[in-house]
């Protein structure tokens, strides 16, 4: 059940209506059942994994709270880590691990040493695994207390708006919201629906349209020119941003309608002035998760230690995205870029100051350079194989040729949505919340803007019902 399907909107309308009709004490039951139903619409059998994860961490939480012995607490944390990461490994990484080990064994003249497991990747497993891990790690660190209500804890793990692709919500932010009685709030509902509308616009008007061009080029790598690869890589940068941030807006907006606040996941990342800033603006719930639970755990030290830790963190961040060498290289490249960015920041500032570059020009140069550095990494992310990556880079060293222009005027259609996105981002950079600014306008202007977005979706949206990219992670 995709957020941009009629099915979802019918389901959502029903859940919202029942949620506010039911007494507060029964609402968690409704939301939990709705969340499980939502998940089962993809693969009912895999609900067992969520139940397993929920059960293990619930019990670990209670046991951890019952003891102050550090050794016992550490052992309980190990149980949680083993159970959750074990599930993740089996269902997400086993095939990758096995194929590489078997390839190595083949080189050594051995047979297949790792058996194959033909299992489908459970939707959202990387997200809810990290979410529930944050609970046990925070509990271990003494940041939060245990959740003793099994139903509420289960709802935290499975809350449907953010179950399959985040934001990866922290227990300390979400669990306290569940017991709070929520009255129907008209303004809150409007705000949530407006955010959902904006997310839907980004998904179907921009991301799904650009996908047509990106798929045509990246789906047939040897046949295209460097100019096409360049255009397709730019297009993919905006496709993945609009796809994922669109999903996040739908999730955050949907939760808001139901009375819950989820963390912000994107903040205009392509306006970043360096790669460090990019990761403060891109997939914020993952980058902060990696920072809090991985990077900080690797210890502190001099510049070399910082660079090493950044590289390790991003290597694992890349692997989190997908079980393939492309994602590993993507993560490593980001680690290197982050390390380089951190270590040269002061020097670059000094150069700009010495040259007397005006701040607006400096910002423009920095944004353009950062965007292109990130765009290079997207080639690894999007290419269907490492071989394709090298083919693309090799093409850039040859005459660039003519760009591929498809008969469907894909890029022309996408430019409609991209223009709206550009205006929205400029408004947000200057005024903060775009919706707050719109809210101050007279009614005809406000309605005009919402109608504009709605009819853009109707007239310019791609009606393909394609998946969100991050559902595969």
């Amino acid at each position, binding site marked *: 059940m995709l957020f941009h399907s009629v099915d979802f909107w019918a389901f959502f309308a029903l859940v919202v209506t029942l949620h506010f009709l039911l007494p507060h004490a029964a609402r968690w039951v409704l939301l939990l059942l709705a969340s499980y139903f939502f998940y089962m619409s993809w693969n009912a059998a895999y609900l067992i994994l969520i139940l397993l994860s929920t059960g293990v961490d619930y019990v670990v939480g209670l046991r951890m709270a019952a003891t102050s012995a550090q050794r016992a607490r550490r052992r309980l944390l190990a149980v949680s880590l083993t159970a959750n990461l074990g599930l993740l490994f089996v269902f997400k990484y086993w095939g990758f691990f096995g194929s590489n080990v078997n390839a190595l064994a083949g080189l050594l003249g051995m047979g297949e040493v790792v058996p194959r497991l033909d299992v489908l990747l459970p939707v959202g497993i990387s997200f809810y695994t990290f979410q529930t891990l944050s609970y046990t790690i925070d509990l271990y660190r003494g940041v939060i207390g245990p959740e003793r209500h099994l139903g509420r804890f289960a709802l935290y793990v499975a809350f449907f708006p953010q179950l399959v692709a985040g934001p990866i919500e922290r227990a300390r932010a979400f669990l306290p919201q569940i017991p709070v009685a929520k009255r129907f709030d008209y303004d809150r509902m409007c705000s949530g629906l407006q955010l959902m509308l904006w997310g839907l616009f980004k998904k179907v008007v921009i991301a799904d349209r650009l996908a047509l061009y990106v798929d045509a080029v990246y789906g*047939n790598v040897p046949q295209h020119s460097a100019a096409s690869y360049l255009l397709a890589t730019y297009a993919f940068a905006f496709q993945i941003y609009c796809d994922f941030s669109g999903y996040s807006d739908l999730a955050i907006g949907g939760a808001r309608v139901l009375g819950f606040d989820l963390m912000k996941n994107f903040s205009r990342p392509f306006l970043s002035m360096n790669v460090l800033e990019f990761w403060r603006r891109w997939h914020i719930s993952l980058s902060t998760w990696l920072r809090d639970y991985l990077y900080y755990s690797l210890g502190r030290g001099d510049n070399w230690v910082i660079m090493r830790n950044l590289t390790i963190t991003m290597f694992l961040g890349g692997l989190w995205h997908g079980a393939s060498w492309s994602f590993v290289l993507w993560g490593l490249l980001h680690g290197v870029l982050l390390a380089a960015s951190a270590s040269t920041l002061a020097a670059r500032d000094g150069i700009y100051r010495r040259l007397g570059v005006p701040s607006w020009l400096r910002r423009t140069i920095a944004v353009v350079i950062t965007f292109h550095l990130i765009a290079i990494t997207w080639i690894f992310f999007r290419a269907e194989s490492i071989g394709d990556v090298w083919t693309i880079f090799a093409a850039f060293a040859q005459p660039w040729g003519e760009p*591929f222009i498809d008969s469907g005027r894909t890029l022309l259609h996408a430019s409609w949505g991209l223009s709206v996105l550009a205006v929205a981002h400029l408004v947000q950079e200057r005024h903060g919340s775009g919706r707050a600014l719109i809210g101050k306008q007279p009614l005809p202007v406000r309605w005009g803007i919402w109608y504009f977005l709605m009819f853009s979706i109707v*007239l310019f*949206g791609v009606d393909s019902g394609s998946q969100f990219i991050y559902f595969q992670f």
Partner: protein
Amino acid sequence: MSVQTGGRAARVVGFVALFALLDAGLGSVLGGLAEYADPKSSPLGALEAAKANPDMDVLVLGSSRANHHIDPDLLGARLGMAVHNAGVDGQGIVFARAVQELVWANGIRPQVFVLQLQAFDVMTFEPERALVASRFLESMPATRATLEGEGYNVKVKLTSRSFRYNSLVLQLALNRLRGQPAAAQDSYVSLDGSLGESTAGPEGVPGRWTSDAREVSPESLRVLGGFVRAAVEAGSQVFVVTGPFLRGGPVLPSESAAADAIARVTSEEGGHLITVDETTHPIFDDPALFYDPSHLNRQGAALYTGILAERIAAGLDRAPAGVEGAAAEQAGGT
């Protein structure tokens, strides 16, 4: 109900009502520009062009494989008849039925229908793709019934007056500015370049369509049966034709089952089946005739159309309808 609650409820109702009004208005404005839809790249353009061509003797229908494979000028010259190709990328049997109903509703009576169909066309049933025809649903009772039978998901989209122009606004506006109505243009587009030179991706490779061993869709067969039956009852001849792929492997059992089902339904309803593919004509094993594994290039299309013309001509001379195909081809050779 408090004054504030009442005011908000009224505002919500007003917002929805104005949306409906704007939807109708936009639909009306865009409907006035529909004749500017491009028949070579949009289903709406193909529909507009088909209903604007009263002189056609032969109407070619189907997906991109009709659109790119059957050259109407060449076929027309060989048959001595006026041929109109209304094949559209990504469309299938439901859309073909829609075009058939539309031309009849406009008083156009083709003597011959040529429906380009493949096994995979009856291994899926995606009638919502034919929503692009919703502008003309009043003239298409069978198509309308098929679409409305798809449940509320499709009904919601049918309700909108502007959604039927989805992805067409820029095309309509640009062609209006250029003053280029579709008139009776054809949908046929030849593909230049051969496999290995073209920018076509590997999508559409037969193995990809059939490797999941999907079963034949009874709904697709029902629509196919309705298409053939209606045409025969109207006094037209129907040729269901299957074309070549550049095949990387053997024909899968699921694909054979689907091809058999097409043959059976076509025969039962009084149509002719013509198979001109790589199994009956080994010349289509040549990659130089293909733009991508599923589409012939200009040279391949010319060859294919020529063979098809001979087979259709033979079929038109022969009064009783029957299943032709692989056996006849193998016996006769080409």
